[in-house]
């Protein structure tokens, strides 16, 4: 469970994030949707401790990222935007490194790596050095690395960027499997169709603020025209805070969250 409250961040005179708050529940896929420069990445980077918020806080399973960063990070799996690998290490060694940094070792770690190699279909290149890997192969390794410690919460920053259709599809499958296994999955994207196809819960960000949130149906229903696209366009128009898209109350969000938590826990975790 990820809770973000009133996050704000400015770089010099530029306000990257003005006020972003939302919840991402366990067993739900939450999409952070917004145009480029809306503040999605900055929000996520504050969430996983790369940036220090000027205001507000982010809680991972109730642990404040800024104050109890070690506890919070241990419960989080992160795929940062444009995550890079170590070219002189094999795919397996890249994953093992992060597993060890999470305190894993020995047979349990190797078993977990094998699981991920299978789940992500990394078999053919698992023992090759990652130098020269394709975009799709790199992403799989980076994902395996983020998931090696079986984190309850998974944050993916624009994970489908630069992926071909097949790779995108297998990534979506993986995200669904994580959700079905009861994980809290939060991912960002500027592609509306992607978010619509995948998410149980959508947070639309524009100009550093949350302009709408709810299930795709809820958001669509509240906008004239009735589609998610209209809501997205409203956010894109820039005056996000003043559109007639109401932000659903937190009651609605937590209700949706508990519903998701009742889903069956799968075996990917």
């Amino acid at each position, binding site marked *: 469970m990820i809770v973000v409250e009133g996050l704000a961040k400015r770089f010099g005179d530029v306000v990257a994030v003005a006020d972003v708050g939302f919840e991402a529940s366990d067993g739900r896929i939450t999409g952070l949707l917004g145009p480029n420069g809306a503040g999605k990445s900055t929000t996520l980077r504050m969430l996983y401790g790369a940036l220090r918020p000027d205001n507000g806080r982010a809680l991972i399973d109730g642990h404040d990222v800024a104050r109890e960063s070690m506890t919070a990070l241990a419960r989080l799996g992160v795929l940062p935007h444009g*995550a890079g690998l170590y070219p002189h290490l094999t795919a397996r060694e890249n994953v093992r490194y992060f597993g*060890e*940094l999470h*305190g894993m*070792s020995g047979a349990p770690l190797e078993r977990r790596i094998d699981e991920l190699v299978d789940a992500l279909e990394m078999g053919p290149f698992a023992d090759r050095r990652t130098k020269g890997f394709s975009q799709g192969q790199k992403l799989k390794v980076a994902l395996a690395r983020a998931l090696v410690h079986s984190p309850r919460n998974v944050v993916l920053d624009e994970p489908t960027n630069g992926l071909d259709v097949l790779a995108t599809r297998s990534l979506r499958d993986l995200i669904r499997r994580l959700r079905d296994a009861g994980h809290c999955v939060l991912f960002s994207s500027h592609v509306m169709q992607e978010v619509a196809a995948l998410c149980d819960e959508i947070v639309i960000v524009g100009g550093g603020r949350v302009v709408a949130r709810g299930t795709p149906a809820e958001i669509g229903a509240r906008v004239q025209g009735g589609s998610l696209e209209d809501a997205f366009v409203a956010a894109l128009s820039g005056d996000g805070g003043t559109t007639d898209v109401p932000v659903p109350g937190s009651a609605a969000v937590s209700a949706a969250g508990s519903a998701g938590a009742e889903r069956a826990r799968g075996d990917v975790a």
Partner: protein
Amino acid sequence: MTRAPWIVFLKELRENFRDRRTLMTALLFGPLGAPVLFAVLMNVTLERGAERAEEPVEVVVVGREHAPNLVAFLQQQGAAIEERPGLTAENASGAVRRREAELVLVIPANFGEQLRAAQPAGVHLHADSSDTGTAGSRARLAAMLQGYSSRMASQRLQARGLSPLLVQPVAVDLVDVATPASRALLVLGILSYFIVFSTLMGGLYVAIDATAGERERGSLEPLLTNPVPREQIVYAKIASAALFMSLSLTLTVIGFAVGLRFVRLEELGMSANFGPEVAAGVIAVMLPFVVLGAALMTIVASFTRSYREAQSWLTAVLLIPTVPIIFAAIYQVQPSLRLMWIPSLSQHLAINGWLRDDPLPMAQLAVSGAATLALGLALAWIAARLYRREGILG
């Protein structure tokens, strides 16, 4: 999570041992290149010095026919006599100034006449004292002329029944220390810089890769999302650079210990004092400097935006340790407890002490080690602080 620094350290080692460039620089170029370059430099210096002493002094003589005995004496003493048509007493100075001749000896027509009359017989020696390259031959020719003069004086006194010793109240025996050996000592003096340089080179690419390289590849941000305190990661990275530097240092010192056997120092009556004990001492006195260098390079590389930028900055950093060494060479500083506080200089003085078989006292070595190590640890601490800033992610 105390295992974390160890995990980061091992990963850096594994990765860098697989990187050909890092390996070549740390384990091949420095350790092999520095001693070879040094041995060549040394041999050239020794040969130049040796040749100079044996070369005949080239003298252009004008008016040879006026003093056949003198010319014969000069030839006997090792002068190469040359006559040049067209060169006269009048244009001799010009010829020297234009570097057409190094030394021109003009013997006037009345030389024999004055000699017979027992008057001081004048000869003119044209030379350029601002040309340091000919200083040696100038002095040697002057000495030969003086020798001829003394011999004539002796003969005259003997002809008059007096002992020649009468006119030699003081016997000066010049012991020339400006020998090729001292030149060799000068070159030996920069051996320490070769060691410092090679040591730093050993960790250069490791330091860049662990900082600017990691950021450029986009692996720094994922790394920092692991539940590991950042300072532990930084210390492990500094340690991995330090390990490569130590390897490079050890191999370089071994290279010197072997390489110096091929320098013909014995011919000059010098011994290359670079046995196993000295080698061990050099490594020991350099180890604190390894910590300092690794921390310094990590800090500098962390500030840069890219791998390439880090490379150019660190190349500049390699020059920093030369500064104290150059000052030491110019001012001929003598080792003192006070100077041992200065990193690089103290290592230079310690290494030179051993090479001259005049080891520094333990107290000075201890101050050198403590001061350098303290500065190194302070820099490592600063590096750790640096990684706590969010700007480090670029």
